[in-house]
């Protein structure tokens, strides 16, 4: 795992120069998303002034190969009008000589493939059909064939490598994709799209080692990326640290960093701070929709129906047909308990972009609300297919299978979720429950214990731990029960049923330990809870007889039961006088 490095300070002037150059490269090649990202970042640096010579250099970046300029203009305008095949056709004759035209051609073909996929999609799914795959693999072969044989792939044009990486990822060839993307980034540090693609390939923390390449880590872009990947992998503290460092280094105006920080806050359950950050963000840049659906998730969690409504109205005003907007409206309907409508909107989001992760997960939740576990499972699966980092989808799968009474499956899925977020006590508790259902008390206990250590959010782990250990390890169980009772007292909440059971267990436990005082105390407490009252009475009788024959050891159960009736009369008396054990003892006799 690479350390969250911030080696040296970032020279903002150089950075700015690089950004602008790269911006031109990206727009020229139709990489609009990367270009937008760069432009935003550049704008955040507008306080950095370049000297006039450099500025004029940058504003006068020309197309290098004049002889292809006419063709380029034609192809680019076709490309911009989404006439991809036309663009590819006219670019073809020059694809061997002009790198920009070549990239434009292949990228157009790639986008055409994606477009066709979207159009021909009969049912919502991210699993691509084999025919599309075939087109893609043909495309990748064509790109490779456009280079002379025997040339080191590292020497290829970085943009081509980026494209190859994207295609390889779609084709499921992760290693190849990684190689291509790393090659692309080494060739040109500043292709943000390549970094983002690479982040999809780092599916768990172990894979972070692929970043241990000095060429990757040396550049300023790496810090943006490391923040991004830490966030993806739920290493939120590190992400926050990275982003704070970047802000300090001069990117304090960047809206991107702010929204990333907000997401990180949200991930570590600091929802209020996250909401606050988003609020300031939307003041600065009121028409920004990026990540706003995450904001709506937070509002949902807080139950802020009113603010959610406002946000939804605003989003509709800005752009009705954005994925983010659809998700926000979906959330709004969900909070109003209109689940069918919510599903409709999530579906709409997915029609626009089937790779939109959170819509899949949220749709799965909605289906769960409607008790349609079948559809929910499908949604969660798609979500996991899109991005394996999504612990909520894994967790959803676990829950659904739990409901379907297939604990073995749910165990597997909870485990996946847990692997993604090893420090989330909720997931550990769920994992423990799954073990419990599968009759693995030892494993379950282990999970609960860990959950307890991590600061159990829901406060259930201790109790469960105690229950698990009842049979295997009474000592620990007793400790856990005690802890549970203390906690309940401290929080001044009550759960009669469970508390009664806890007392009963402790009474029995102490009885076996011959700690009669404690036994008495707990058994006495039990009498407050109707469910365990009778048993407590029996125990008290037993206790009495045991005390009588103190030396004999354990009381004889059959005899105790025989005494059951007698003691019932003393019931009220004992209740009224919480005196030391000896007193009651005499009364009983």
């Amino acid at each position, binding site marked *: 795992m690479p350390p969250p490095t911030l080696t040296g300070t970032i020279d903002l002037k150089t950075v700015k120069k690089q950004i602008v150059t790269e911006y031109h490269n990206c727009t020229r090649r139709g990489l609009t998303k990367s270009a937008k990202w760069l432009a935003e970042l550049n704008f955040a640096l507008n306080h950095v002034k370049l000297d006039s010579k450099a500025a004029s250099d940058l504003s006068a970046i020309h197309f290098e190969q004049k002889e292809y300029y006419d063709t380029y203009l034609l192809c680019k305008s076709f490309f911009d009008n989404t006439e991809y095949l036309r663009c590819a056709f006219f670019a073809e004759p020059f694809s061997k000589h002009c790198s920009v035209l070549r990239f434009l051609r292949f990228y157009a073909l790639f986008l055409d493939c994606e477009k066709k996929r979207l159009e021909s999609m009969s049912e919502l799914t991210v*699993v*691509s059909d*084999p025919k599309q795959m075939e087109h893609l693999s043909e495309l990748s072969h064509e790109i490779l064939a456009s280079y002379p044989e025997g040339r080191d792939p590292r020497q290829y044009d970085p943009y081509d490598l980026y494209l190859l990486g994207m295609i390889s990822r779609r084709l*499921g060839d992760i290693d190849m994709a990684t190689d291509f993307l790393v090659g692309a980034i080494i060739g040109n540090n500043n292709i943000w799209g390549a970094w983002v693609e690479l982040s999809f390939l780092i599916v768990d923390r172990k894979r972070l080692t692929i970043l241990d390449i000095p060429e990757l880590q040396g550049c300023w872009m790496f810090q943006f990326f490391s923040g991004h990947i830490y966030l993806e992998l739920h290493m939120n503290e590190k992400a926050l640290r990275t982003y704070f460092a970047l802000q300090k280094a001069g990117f304090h105006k960047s809206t991107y960093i702010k929204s990333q920080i907000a997401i990180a806050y949200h991930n570590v359950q600091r929802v209020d701070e996250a909401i606050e950050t988003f609020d300031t963000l939307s003041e600065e840049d009121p028409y920004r929709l990026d990540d706003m659906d995450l904001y709506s998730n937070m509002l949902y969690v807080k139950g802020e129906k009113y603010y959610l409504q406002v946000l939804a109205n605003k989003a509709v005003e800005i752009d009705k047909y954005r994925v983010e907007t659809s998700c926000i409206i979906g959330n709004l309907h969900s909070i109003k308990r209109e689940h069918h409508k919510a599903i409709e909107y999530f579906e709409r989001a997915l029609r626009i972009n089937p790779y939109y992760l959170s819509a899949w997960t949220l749709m799965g939740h909605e289906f769960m609300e409607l008790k349609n576990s*079948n559809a929910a499972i499908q949604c969660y699966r798609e979500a996991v*297919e899109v991005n394996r980092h999504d612990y909520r989808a894994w967790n959803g799968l676990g829950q659904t299978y739990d409901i379907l*009474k297939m604990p*073995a499956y749910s165990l597997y899925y909870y485990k996946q979720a847990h692997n993604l977020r090893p420090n989330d006590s909720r997931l550990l508790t769920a994992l423990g429950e799954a073990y419990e259902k599968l009759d*693995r008390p030892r494993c379950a206990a282990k999970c609960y214990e860990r959950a307890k250590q991590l600061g159990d959010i829901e406060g259930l782990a201790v109790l469960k731990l105690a229950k698990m250990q009842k049979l295997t390890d009474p000592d620990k169980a007793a400790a856990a029960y005690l802890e549970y009772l203390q906690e309940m007292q401290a929080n001044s909440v009550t759960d009669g049923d469970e508390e009664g059971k806890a007392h009963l267990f402790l009474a029995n436990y102490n009885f076996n330990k011959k700690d009669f005082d404690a036994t008495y105390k707990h058994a006495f407490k039990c009498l407050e809870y109707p469910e365990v009252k009778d048993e407590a009475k029996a125990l008290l009788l037993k206790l009495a007889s045991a005390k009588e024959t103190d030396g004999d050891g354990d009381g004889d159960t059959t005899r105790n039961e025989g005494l059951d009736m007698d003691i019932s009369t003393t019931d009220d008396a004992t209740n009224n006088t919480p005196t030391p054990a000896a007193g009651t003892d005499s009364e009983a006799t």
Partner: protein
Amino acid sequence: MTMSGINGRNLRNSNNSSNEFYRGMVQAYIEKQDYETACFWADKLVSMNGGMQQDVYTLAKCLYLCGQYHRAANLLQHYSYERSNPHFRCLAARCLYMAKEYQKALEILDTGTRSTQVHRSRSSAWEPADPHKTITAQIFLLKGKIYEAMMNRILAAQNYKEALSADIYCVEAFDLLTQHQMLSTAEEVALLESLPFEKCLNSDVEFLKFMYSSKLKKYPFCGEDVQRPTQFPFLAKNLDVLTSEAERHFYNCDFQMAYKVSSQVTKEDPYHVGCLPVYVACLVEMKRATELFKIAHKLVEVMSESALAWYSVGAYYFLIGRHEQSRRNLNKALTIDPVFGPAWLLFGHSFATEREHDQAMAAYFKATQLMKGCHLPLLHVGLECGLSNNPQLAMKFLDEARLLAPKDPFIRHEMGVVKFNEKKYDEALTLFKETEEFVDRTKHSGAYLKKWEPLYNNLGHVSRKLKKYEEAQRYHQKALLLCPANASTHSAIGLVHAVAGKTENAIESFHKALSLRRDDAFSTTMLRYCIEKLVEESNNASDDDIVASDVVDASDEESQNFAQKYSKKKSLDTTQNQGSSGKRGHPKTPDAGDMPGFLSWFKDSVSKIDSGPGGRSSDGPRHTSTPAAGESSAREKRMLSSGTEESEYITTRRKNRARHSESSSEGERNRSGNASSSDAEENE
């Protein structure tokens, strides 16, 4: 005095000169393609001169050119010059041949040959002006054609050879020999060697040799680089040369290139008969239905009398999966030309795709007879035998096919599949490895390798059977690279992981397989087992493993337990399997070593194997296996479906036994469970 009287006198007076005049005129009209007029004047000439040989010949020729074959034959027989003059014999036989009176034509030729020697010396015999002065080659050629039409291919081939040795420039004979698959590769080479090149009139031996050798069978060179003619640069643009280049590309499975070259030819000459079959085959291979539709339409419009046109219509319907119509059109093609081998081959494919093994086999056999020198029909017969569980017979046919095309990797591959089914895994492995060598040796485009995806999967299966799990895994990965998003490859990988004890990885692979094919019963079953096993493992695992995210690697012991557990279950299943086999038509012998799941799945994989090679190899040199090409995918589907059926069967059986209270996950999913509302927390 009437005009005719004058003319008659004039004619009689200037008999000789006017004869010459009219003869010249007739020739001129023939030159000008006005055959009717020529016919008229030739007829008058015959009357004028009382049936001189020369005039009768001219008249018959005109009638022949007018397409009045019966009349021409009648005329010639009336004058019966054919006894004495081979030219007459040839023309008469040709007319009868065109009129489809094969027996009569043969009789005329035969009478001639018997009496030729006698009459040859007679000086009275007239001969048309001809620089080569000999017609023997044409007579042999005609005879060969007649024999071929009468389905006597051996005699036909003999006659063609005779024709060639009589006249080395007689390309038609060579074409018929090679393009109609009458000779095996070795025989073809021998023929080329034996040709009397020294008889060449010009000093163009090299040229002739090049032209002829470019027509030879292409598949012995399978995998070699396609060379353009360097010695004869002027030929680079010649359509025939380009066609043979396209054919070679096709045999190299470089359909892209083949398509490029052949479409170049068809662009220049849309009805180039030599190139169209390759072109059609490419279109089928590349699944370009629209273009195929277009060309088929055009061909039917333009040459509805040609078998090729209807063949391409059949190929189109085959491609889009309407086999009924496909067969109807192929029938049409076969009525026009009953010896059109490729149509028979496609016929077989269309039956095979619909699982009509017997009919398919019959069609392939027919093709075997017609295309003696082509290994494809044999390969397919072998394949069908393998499918109907007759490995010995299958091997026999495949061996024969290998004799015809010793370098063809597909045959080897099929043999491997057969061996695999016989559980001779070692042999299968060697065969597959050999195939792989062939494949690796060639320089390949991606499309070419894609055809070989089944090979790598099969290598994976065999390696797994031989307990080389690492290798198996590697091979499957390679297959996955060639054909990404293939559900059965994913489940194969899962299987390897499962057997090797990497349960977590296995689960992941099965998940992937299921995401690609939701109703894959085998993966569903295996997934359930693996998940159960994971739970078992977790029980034994140390505390750290439970909580920490490490993947639990099963110990060897555990994997053995796993195997034992399944082998127990298996024995039950196989018996059931056997019981069911009768109904399903694929009898299966109980398999001692396999898990039940494996068994069923394996079937699936094998089929795939079959489909792969079958699909590609199907082409004959002439009509390179259009059929085969299209076939692959269809057959694959077929096999897969049968595979899933089987495994489904097993799962249902299991369910009935109710070993596990919960049915397979898929089934469970279908029943909508009583879901409780999900935690609100989840919505964060």
